[in-house]
Every structure is written in structure tokens, then in C-alpha cells.
């Protein structure tokens, strides 16, 4: 097996809140293999966006990376000086934001924003940048005549394509897409995801796709990392994680979303309760207060991430009983009465 | 903006509380303290000032006590070219400054709030007419307007108040109006109307308490404006020659060659007093804004 493009090891990110600090990401470890799409999934506030932003090292003013490593092509980018990190940004690691409306500068044409990265970060001259901008628009399926338009003149889906074009401008090795289709309707979501998949395969790049929507993961991802309350709950090949989940949280998550392909997958069952307050997380497994299968041990000890099948790891004390729990988890009544 | 608790305490207490004085903001407290000092000075001017501000003074040798330096012959801030005591003038100047400031601010806040309230609450053609009037008020150059007005009327400190009442309600009215519009769109006004409350009752009970702090905010800005305007008018010679104000002192100093005489003790203190009172208004305003618009991020 080849070395992964990016290995995140024991990453910790804390936010200064009030007088104290909150660990939004508390020891996340996962690999991003080359040439594949990794889905990073979880509820809002689980730390997935913080992980995504931590990889670019552009995080909120009150946030700090307090521990861990991020080995990107053999270099720990958590430890290199800011100057060196800045050289990597966009040339190697690009970003597709959730809302392209707010993330494109309203006072410049999209052409000018493409030129900005191509020339200032890619070192191209005007002519080369223009050719590349046209090529990028062709790649994402927008007429090049629209290069001169301002962001507000595009529809939501088109703006997201512009954001993809921008991300691919300098041929990055890794593209981080933070909820890239959340703001769009389902039909446009599929078009954008199809395009992302196609471009990823064509260019052989790696993508981290951050989403709260497990059906998006099912639609395009090769591997999946499921996060809960700042920690990794389960990680593995997408097929394995979604068809044979071993963590009760993944099982619950699967019940809570419709299929992106439109096929009804029975009734939708939400997981009762809310994620814990990270300022004072529960001592044991963080999912225990909402878990229908929680035992006494779960409220005491933090479960380690164990590899139970090839490349499939899970952090649950009852992972060995997973086949039985899966049977129970598909029933709605299991989730109605939390243990 | 959090809704006001309808506490069943006495009306004065409720009124005071509904002003929501920004007592937890250091700048605002500083501003309120400055106001307090000036109010006390104005009230006890007779006791504080050593001389009548218009009295022409003489030295012990029966010479005119003109252009005395500070400390000379016991004059704290020296004397003017006519032999009047600068410090006493300064002390009495607080009276006209506060009188004009407070009345003008009250008029501006009152008219502006009423116009904004009526305009925003009733809408329709009432709103259209009032807002066009505001547009016209915005088209009138304020200081020239005061000068022309002052020239036609008898010289009086009230000219400034009148001119401000006629023109400067415009800013307050626009802000209050938009605030009333958002308040009116909230559910409880409709609920009150369905429940059979009259317009007057809805305005008094639900809308007025919520715009009072905004009125007060614009009032505290207007105090500064009024004092600055009075100073300018007096400086230009259109003020009331009978009353001693800081603007009058500056005009007197300027006309008496105080600049060439390097008599800083004469023209610097009135300016500093104006700055203090006006910036006190700004500081209070800032404190208010932090309460009223916490999202401004300050």
C-alpha cells in the first residue's frame, strides 16, 4: 500500500471561550489516501469543519492547534513555520467553501479572482492566466463568456462551480470541500457531486469532503471518517462503514438521512438528544448519553479506536457485538427510548 | 434588543430603568461623571465664581486689571483685555452651555421621536409626507440657516435651540422610524391589536418603551451639537451679548488679539470645556450603542 497523501495523527484544536478553553477536536487520527475522496461526516459542532480548517491552518482567531501532527507528503505541516505553510496553501492544498456566495469577493469579477490566484500564487503572466481561467471554466462547464461576470450574477449552483474552478486553479494535490453542496437543492447537489467526482478521477487528486449528510458520503466517497463530539467514532472504506457500521452513532446517522438517489430507505429516525457540551464532555464514551446500547463501562472509560476489519476502525466498547446491534438499530423503537 | 420586562414597580423607577443608562461601560460612566461635574458647576456658579463674569475689575493700585496672566493678582486664569475674570466667565459659561444643550437636545429628541413614531407606526401617506419633510430638512445647510435665523430674530440663546428644533430632528426621526417599523412587524403588536388595544395603547405600552433608549442616545448626541453650534454662532457675533457663554469668550478673545498676545489661558480653557462636554456625550453614546447594538463588535 502506498503512503497516504495526508496522515492526521492525534490532532487537537481548542477554542478559547470566556476564561477557559474547549477542545473542539480532541485527538483525531485518520489518513487521506492518494487519488480518493474521503468523507468526513458528523453532526454540526462535531469538529469536522474545525479539522478541515486546521489542515489549512487558517482557523478562527480564538482557536489554536494544541497538539498532534499532520503529515502531508512526509512533512508535518502542523509544525512548519507560517511562511512555509503559506507556500503550500492553494498550490498543494485548496479549499471549496460551503457558501460560494459569501466566499467570493463581491466587488471583483470571477475572472479577476481567478487571475488573483493564478498570477499571485501561481506565478503566471497575464496571458497564461487568461488561458488557464478559460480552461478551468470549460472544465467545470461554464461558458467562458461569463468570466467577466460578478459573483452575484451567478446562480447558487454556478457559483459552486466557480468555487471548484478556483480550487483546481493551481493543480493542488488535496482539495478540502467544506459542505460544498449543503446550500443547494438536491438535483443541483447531484450535478455538483458528479462533477467533483469526475474531476477528481481525471486529475487524480485527493478530496476531503466534509458533510453532515451521510447520503452525500454514500454518493461519492471512497472512504469515510465519522466524527462525534470532537473525536473519531468510526473510520473505514465507505461501503463497509455504511453497510456494516460498527459504531451505534453511525447506525443512527444512517437512519436519519434519506438516500441522495431518491430511493426511500424506510422511515427516517432521528437520534434523540443533542451532542454533549464540549466544555465539560462526559468522562467515558461521548456518545454514551444518547446511545441506546450504552453499558456501565461506556460512561466510565473512553473506548480506544480499534481496527476490527481491514482498514475499518471503530471506537466502541461493544464493537464486537456490532452485527447484533445493527439488527436492533434499524428498528425505530430502539431509538425512541435512550438507555 | 431584549424586550423590556414589565415590572410592576413605580413609574419613575420604570422610566429610569427603561433609559437603560450604560453604567457598566467605563467610557459611558466617565461621560456621565463629566456631565455631573458640569451640572454641579452650573448650579453653584454663584458660589464657585469669585467675580461677576461681566464685572470690570481693578488691581489694588486702581489700575484696570486687563490682560492679567494666570495667578497674577490672584486671578486663577487671568483676565480679559477688558479686565474681566476668565475663570468666572468659564464657570458661568457652563450655565448657558447646559441650558442650551439640554433644551435643544430635548427638543430634537422629542420632535424626532414623535415624527419617527407617527411615521413608522401609521405608515401610508403620513409616513410619505413626514419623510419628504425630513428630506427637505437634510437639504438645509444647518449652520448658515442658524446664522440667517439669528440675524432676523433678536439675538438670543434660544435661536440656536429653535434652529436645531426646526432642522436637526431629521436624523432622530429616520432612526426611530426604522426602529418602529421593526417593532411593528413583531408578533405582539398584532396580537395586541387583535386583542382590541387602541393605537394609543399599543404605542404607549409596546413601542414607546422600546424606542426610549434610542431617543436618549440621539438626545445625547444633540447636546454636543447644540453646544458646538451655540459656540460657533456666538463666535461669529450672532449670540446673545447679555449672556456669557464659552463661544462668547472665544469671540471676545479672538477679537481682542488674544492670539497675537499668546494669551492661551484665555482661549484654551473654553475650548477644553466644550470638548469635555461634547465628548462626554459621545462616550455616553458609545456606551449606549454597545447596549443597543451589541453586534457592532465593540
Amino acid at each position: 500500500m502506498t503512503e497516504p497523501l495526508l496522515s492526521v495523527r492525534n490532532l487537537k484544536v481548542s477554542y478559547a471561550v470566556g476564561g477557559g478553553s474547549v477542545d473542539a477536536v480532541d485527538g483525531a487520527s485518520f489518513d487521506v489516501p492518494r487519488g480518493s475522496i474521503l468523507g468526513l461526516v458528523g453532526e454540526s459542532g462535531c469538529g469536522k469543519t474545525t479539522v478541515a480548517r486546521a489542515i489549512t491552518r487558517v482557523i478562527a482567531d480564538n482557536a489554536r492547534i494544541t497538539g498532534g501532527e499532520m503529515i502531508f507528503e512526509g512533512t508535518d505541516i502542523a509544525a512548519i513555520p507560517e511562511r512555509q505553510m503559506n507556500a503550500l496553501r492553494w498550490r498543494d492544498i485548496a479549499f471549496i467553501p460551503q457558501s460560494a456566495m459569501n466566499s467570493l469577493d463581491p466587488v471583483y469579477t470571477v475572472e479577476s479572482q481567478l487571475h488573483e490566484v493564478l498570477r499571485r500564487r501561481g506565478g503566471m503572466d497575464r496571458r497564461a492566466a487568461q488561458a488557464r481561467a478559460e480552461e478551468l471554466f470549460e472544465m467545470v462547464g461554464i461558458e467562458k463568456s461569463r468570466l467577466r461576470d460578478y459573483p452575484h450574477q451567478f446562480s447558487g449552483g454556478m457559483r459552486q462551480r466557480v468555487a471548484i474552478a478556483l480550487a483546481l486553479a493551481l493543480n493542488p494535490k488535496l482539495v478540502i470541500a467544506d459542505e460544498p453542496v449543503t446550500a443547494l437543492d438536491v438535483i443541483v447537489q447531484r450535478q455538483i457531486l458528479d462533477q467533483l467526482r469526475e474531476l477528481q478521477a481525471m486529475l487524480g487528486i485527493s478530496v476531503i469532503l466534509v458533510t453532515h449528510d451521510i447520503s452525500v458520503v454514500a454518493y461519492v466517497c471512497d472512504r469515510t471518517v465519522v466524527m462525534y463530539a470532537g473525536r473519531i467514532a468510526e473510520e473505514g472504506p465507505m461501503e463497509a462503514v455504511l453497510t456494516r457500521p460498527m459504531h451505534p452513532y453511525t447506525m443512527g446517522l444512517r437512519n436519519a438521512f434519506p438516500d441522495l438517489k431518491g430511493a426511500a430507505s424506510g422511515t427516517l429516525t432521528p437520534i434523540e438528544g443533542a451532542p454533549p457540551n464540549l466544555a465539560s464532555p462526559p468522562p467515558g464514551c461521548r456518545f454514551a448519553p444518547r446511545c441506546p446500547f450504552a453499558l456501565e463501562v461506556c460512561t466510565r472509560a473512553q473506548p480506544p479506536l480499534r481496527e476490527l476489519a481491514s482498514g475499518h476502525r471503530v471506537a466502541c466498547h461493544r464493537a464486537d457485538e456490532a452485527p447484533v446491534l445493527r439488527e436492533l438499530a434499524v428498528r425505530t423503537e430502539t431509538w425512541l427510548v435512550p438507555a | 434588543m431584549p424586550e423590556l420586562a414589565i415590572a410592576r414597580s413605580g413609574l419613575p423607577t420604570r422610566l429610569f430603568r427603561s433609559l437603560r443608562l450604560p453604567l457598566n461601560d467605563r467610557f459611558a460612566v466617565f461621560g456621565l461623571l463629566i456631565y455631573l461635574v458640569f451640572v454641579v458647576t452650573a448650579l453653584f456658579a454663584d458660589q464657585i465664581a469669585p467675580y461677576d463674569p461681566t464685572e470690570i475689575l481693578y488691581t489694588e493700585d486702581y489700575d484696570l486689571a486687563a490682560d492679567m496672566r494666570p495667578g497674577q493678582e490672584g486671578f486663577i486664569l487671568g483676565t480679559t483685555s477688558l479686565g474681566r475674570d476668565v475663570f468666572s466667565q468659564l464657570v458661568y459659561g457652563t450655565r448657558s452651555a447646559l441650558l442650551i444643550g439640554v433644551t435643544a437636545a430635548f427638543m430634537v429628541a422629542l420632535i424626532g421621536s414623535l415624527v419617527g413614531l407617527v411615521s413608522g407606526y401609521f405608515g401610508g401617506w403620513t409616513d410619505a409626507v413626514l419623510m419628504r419633510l425630513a428630506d427637505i430638512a437634510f437639504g438645509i445647510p444647518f449652520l448658515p440657516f442658524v446664522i440667517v435665523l439669528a440675524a432676523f430674530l433678536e439675538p438670543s440663546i434660544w435661536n440656536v435651540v429653535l434652529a436645531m428644533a426646526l432642522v436637526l430632528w431629521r436624523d432622530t426621526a429616520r432612526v426611530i422610524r426604522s426602529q418602529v417599523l421593526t417593532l411593528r412587524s413583531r408578533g405582539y403588536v398584532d396580537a395586541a391589536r387583535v386583542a382590541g388595544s387602541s393605537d394609543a395603547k399599543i404605542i404607549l405600552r409596546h413601542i414607546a418603551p422600546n424606542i426610549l433608549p434610542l431617543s436618549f442616545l440621539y438626545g445625547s448626541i444633540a447636546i454636543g451639537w447644540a453646544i458646538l453650534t451655540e459656540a460657533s454662532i456666538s463666535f461669529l457675533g450672532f449670540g446673545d451679548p447679555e449672556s456669557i457663554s464659552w463661544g462668547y469668550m472665544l469671540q471676545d478673545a479672538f477679537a481682542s488679539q488674544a492670539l497675537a498676545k499668546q494669551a492661551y489661558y484665555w482661549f484654551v480653557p473654553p475650548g477644553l470645556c466644550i470638548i469635555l462636554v461634547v465628548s462626554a456625550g459621545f462616550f455616553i453614546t458609545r456606551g449606549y450603542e454597545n447596549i443597543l447594538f451589541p453586534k457592532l463588535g465593540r
Partner: protein
Amino acid sequence: MAHLKAALSRTLQLALVLWAVVTILFLMFRLMPGNPMAAYIDPTFTAEQQEALMAQFGLDKPLWEQYVIYLGNLLQGELGQSFRYREPVAERILALLPNTLILTFTSLIIAYAFGILAGAYLAWRRGSAVEKVAIPIVLTTRAMPEFWLGMVLLAIFSFWLGWFPAGGTRSAGSDYGGFWGLYTSPDFLAYLALPALTLAIYSQGLPLLLMRSNMLDVMKEDFVTMARIKGLSTWTVVVRHAARNALLPVMTSFAIAVGYQLQGNVVVETVFSWPGLGRELVRAVSASDYPLAQGAFLLIAVVVILMNLIADLLYSLLDPRVSHA
């Protein structure tokens, strides 16, 4: 063209405002205490002059007829005869306008250049010690009476240090040969320096505070974060994206500030004996030269209203969200 329509309706609206101001001015000067004819006729004018003015302004006719004549005269730029100068008011005030505009624009350009840079800097350094000291100082400059600041600067730089002349626009007997010769001569600039500095110090607070609060808002926008993720230089992030977006409302405030400044000029021009519109207004009112006072007031009002219109149009021109709708 939706924005063209909006611009037209705004122009029309401000034309109505101008008409209202003109009417108010008419009523003020006709209904003032004393002889209503005093608005145009000085007792020392010759009998023929008096009669000519009576006829020209219809002063023996009823008020409404006078009003119609007044409007008609205004449209032709006819503002009457100045009592003091014995020359047409229109000529007099148009001759003074350049002095006022030069003072206004010089000071505002300095104020805006400084205010925009300092405001952007303070926003970028928010929470720092510099900011904690600077903001109260800026608020204090806003609280100063402009003419007092002028007096202090005059006392220090002119009377004490002797660096600058104390008032006027030119040294006695100097001749510059033409418009540009005058306004670029070192002599003129020495006269301009103190009044312009006074107004600039007073005016910089508005653009500074506006720029700063806009910057603080814009810095929270996603596109600024994205610019950082793109690895762009701090300069590019702060200036090309944050400042450029924050600048928009500040630029439109420039036109409005010109209007405000013209009003403030009244006192500063007096302090520095600067022969401009504001000082002329004060002198005309003091000397009961009503036609001149009326004309000066009107011209100031026209510029104020015109600047409000320019501010609106400028905004729709500078913001692509409006101009490319």
C-alpha cells in the same frame, strides 16, 4: 436599466428638495421683521436703481406674484444687487466659490486619505494598545469646535512660531498670472496650510471611524478567510479584499462630507479671513446685505443637495452588486 431609473427618480426627488429649500428661503427673507422690500433694496441706492429693482423683483406686487418672479429670476441666475459691493450677487458669490471649494477639497482629501488608512490600520490592530489610545483621541477631535482648533493652530504656528501667515489667501502685491499659477504658488499654499489643516483634523474622524467599523465587519466575511486560505499575502488580504470592500460606504460619505464641510467652513473661513462663501455669508448677514446673504445661502444649499445626489450615484456606480444588477 433599473439603476438608471432609480438614479432619475432620486434626481427628481432632490430637485423637489431644492425647490422646497428655495421656497423656505424666499419666505424667510420676505416675512422677516421690518420692511419686506429690504430684501433687495438698500435705502442708499439711487431712485432709479430702486425703481429698477422694484420692477425686476416685483416688490410692489402681492406675495405670490413676487414668488413666481423670484423663481423665474433664480432660473436665470438673477439674485439681485449686493448692497455693499454694488454689483450683481451672482457674480460676487461665483467669484468666491473657487476659494471655498479649494479649501474644502484640499482638507477633505487629506482627511480621507489619513482617515481611511488609519481606520483600516486600527481595524486590523483591533484590541491593541494603539487602538485603545487612538479611539478616544479621535472622538475628542470630533468634539472640538473647528474655529477653536483654528485659533490654537494660528496662535502656535502663526503668531508664535511665525511659520505661516495669519489670514487671507495671498501676500500683498503678489501676482501669480492665471488660475494654476495662483493655486500652485508657494505663497498661496502657505496661506492654505493652516485652514486646510484645521478642517482636515476636524474631518478625519468620520472616514476613520467609518472605515474602521466597516473593516471590522468585512474582516469577518468568508471571502476574507478564503483569501487567507488561498495563501495570499497579508497585504493582499487586508488591502485588496478587506479594505476594498470596506471602502465603498466611505467613498460615498466623501460627497456628503463635502456638504457638511461647506457648512463648517463658515466659521473656519472667518477665523482665517479666508475669502470664501461662508465668510461672505457671515459678513453679509452682519451688514444686512440681504441679497448677498440670500445668494450665498442658496449656493451653499445647492452644493449640499448636489453632493447628496452625487453620494447616491457614486454608491450605485462603485458597488457592482448595484451597477451590474
